[in-house]
């Protein structure tokens, strides 16, 4: 557990982050389970190759056999022999907004999850513990919806052009001014897609001869953007400042490989909240390191913007730091604003440069105006500029729900990862069969959860990932906690050896 604090003086608030170790017996049994499934996977592949079993998988036709194989069949080994068996817990079709409650379409399979059929019935009022809806703005009614509908009538849905051409609307300029004010930076620019905000802008910021220091658990969009840029990438251990400082020192002392020329730029890339771990970046220490070694800092607040900080300004406000210390403030509107897309905030010079040089502003169609309006409404509500304290109450409610939900789960004896203030609550399942069983048992009891397994997590760290929302009432959370306790007993998931004294 990370209770041991380094650089205590940098923090203005307690920083409680724990990653309880996997019990050794559970780890061994998990490997054994994967071993058994692998053996049966090889058996099934053998039967498919000898046409004893019908192959549902996409394969080349006989006439195409001589060509370069389209399907890397070994790379699909895991998908067709392990994931297929439990995939009814994934990609569940819902027929309502992903709010605090949702309606799930009922489906069944008669060929072990290779194909699904709908029963035509809808499972109503499922408590949604899986969607990213931190502040509860995912609604199809209310102020935001009416404003978005009006803008939809006025502007239409699609923009069909880029920001540098016809797609530069007043709605975008209004949103960018608001985002800059919200973040407390000089200027901001927004993009129609969160993933693209990372993958298309990092190549505009760094290139060959630059060094990127990236956290090992960074999101795929950051990884793609870093690779696309051509810069040299070095990985430091997750949230480990010792590892980061060591890389920084090596980079400065040794410079570039072979030529030993100094790096043109050193860019540290971290996320505010890590959505698989539920951990919060040690931002005070990262900023102290970047100042000490004169590096640049790229902070991805995809999950923390709106969800952290007394007024929802994200991880910078959460630690009481100055936004100007972060060179590039990136974030998305997907998780807390009930919208889509992303933004980058920073100095005016940076934003003007990105407006000229970013792949997205040159090639991508810009954000749809109704979506922009949804964000403007939600953001004004959080800032209290809509004349109500609704947004502020949501921020408080989320913080309260988060602490309550995490504490209760720990009291029950589950192993919960991450920071006690993070609205993402990973509950450890470990064994592969328990992933599928947990998802099924919870839906049976009318709770929708997201379960995650290898290779999205380390092989012995499969988990259920709860996303707490401000829209969850205390009753909903208590119902969910009761059901989780029940299923936890049924599946024997209460592995924790740290008993919380209530």
């Amino acid at each position: 557990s990370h209770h041991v604090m380094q650089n205590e003086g940098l923090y203005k608030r307690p920083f409680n982050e724990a990653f309880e170790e996997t019990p050794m017996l559970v780890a061994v049994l998990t490997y054994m389970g994967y071993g058994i499934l692998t053996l049966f996977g090889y058996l099934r592949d053998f039967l498919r190759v000898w046409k004893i079993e019908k192959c549902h998988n996409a394969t080349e036709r006989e006439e195409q056999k001589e060509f370069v194989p389209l399907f890397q069949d070994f790379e699909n080994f895991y998908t067709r022999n392990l994931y297929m068996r439990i995939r009814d817990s994934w990609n569940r079709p819902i027929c309502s907004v992903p709010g605090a409650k949702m309606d799930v379409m009922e489906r069944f399979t008669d060929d072990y999850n290779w194909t699904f059929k709908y029963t035509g019935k809808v499972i109503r009022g499922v408590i949604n513990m899986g969607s990213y809806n931190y502040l509860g703005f995912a609604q199809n009614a209310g102020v935001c919806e009416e404003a978005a509908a009006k803008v939809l009538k006025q502007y239409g849905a699609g923009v069909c052009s880029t920001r540098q051409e016809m797609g530069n609307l007043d709605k975008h300029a209004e949103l960018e001014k608001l985002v800059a004010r919200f973040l407390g930076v000089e200027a901001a620019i927004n993009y129609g897609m969160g993933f693209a905000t990372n993958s298309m802008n990092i190549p505009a910021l760094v290139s060959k001869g630059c060094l990127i220091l990236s956290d090992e658990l960074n999101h795929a969009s950051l990884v793609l953007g870093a690779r696309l840029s051509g810069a040299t990438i070095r990985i430091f251990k997750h949230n480990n400042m010792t590892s980061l400082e060591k890389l920084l020192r090596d980079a400065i002392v040794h410079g570039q490989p072979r030529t030993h020329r100094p790096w043109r730029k050193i860019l540290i890339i971290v996320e505010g909240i890590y959505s698989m771990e539920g951990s919060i970046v040690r931002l005070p220490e990262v900023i102290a390191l970047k100042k000490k070694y004169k590096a640049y800092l790229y902070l991805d607040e995809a999950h923390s913007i709106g969800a952290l900080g007394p007024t929802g300004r994200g991880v910078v406000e959460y630690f009481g730091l100055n936004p100007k210390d972060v060179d590039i403030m990136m974030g998305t509107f997907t998780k807390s604003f009930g919208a889509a897309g992303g933004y980058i905030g920073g100095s005016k010079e940076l934003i003007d440069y990105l407006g000229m040089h970013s792949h997205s502003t040159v090639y991508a169609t810009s954000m749809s105006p109704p979506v922009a309006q949804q964000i403007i409404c939600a953001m004004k509500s959080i800032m209290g500029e809509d004349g109500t304290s609704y947004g502020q109450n949501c921020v408080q409610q989320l913080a309260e729900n988060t602490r309550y939900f995490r504490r209760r789960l720990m009291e029950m004896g589950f192993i919960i990862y991450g920071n006690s203030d993070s609205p993402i609550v990973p509950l450890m399942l470990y064994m592969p069969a328990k992933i599928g069983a947990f998802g099924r048992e919870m839906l049976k009891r009318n709770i929708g959860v997201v379960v995650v397994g290898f290779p999205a997590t380390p092989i012995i760290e499969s988990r259920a990932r709860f996303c707490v929302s401000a829209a969850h009432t205390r009753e909903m959370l208590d119902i969910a906690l009761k059901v989780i306790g029940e299923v936890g007993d049924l599946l024997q998931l209460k592995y924790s050896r740290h008993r919380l004294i209530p």
Partner: protein
Amino acid sequence: LNSRGIWLAYIILVVLLHVILLSIPFFSIPVVWTLTNVVHNLVMYLFLHTVKGTPFETPDQGKARLLTHWEQMDYGIQFTSSRKFLSISPIVLYLLASFYTKYEAVYFVINTASLLSVLLPKLPQFHGVR
């Protein structure tokens, strides 16, 4: 191969393999130990030095597709603790098998050949060699 408990799981699997072979009534002790050694090395050779690529999609644009598991371990860095462990374990098994077969010639040749088949690919000089 660095994650928690995997070495213990590996040792338990080898012991389990040996117990299962030991439980076959008509096998003598030397045969059981030789079979344990040979089966273990065969499986190790298959999984670490034959199968290439990854059984799941990786975001490295197919870089790992042409590498065996042994070459992908620890990003190709040599002499890591996992590599040392996986190099030592067949040797320990070989010594045990040689001891229990009382160094009889036939068994000795089989065990030695089997050991070399998993030791040679582990040498750094053979990294990436086809």
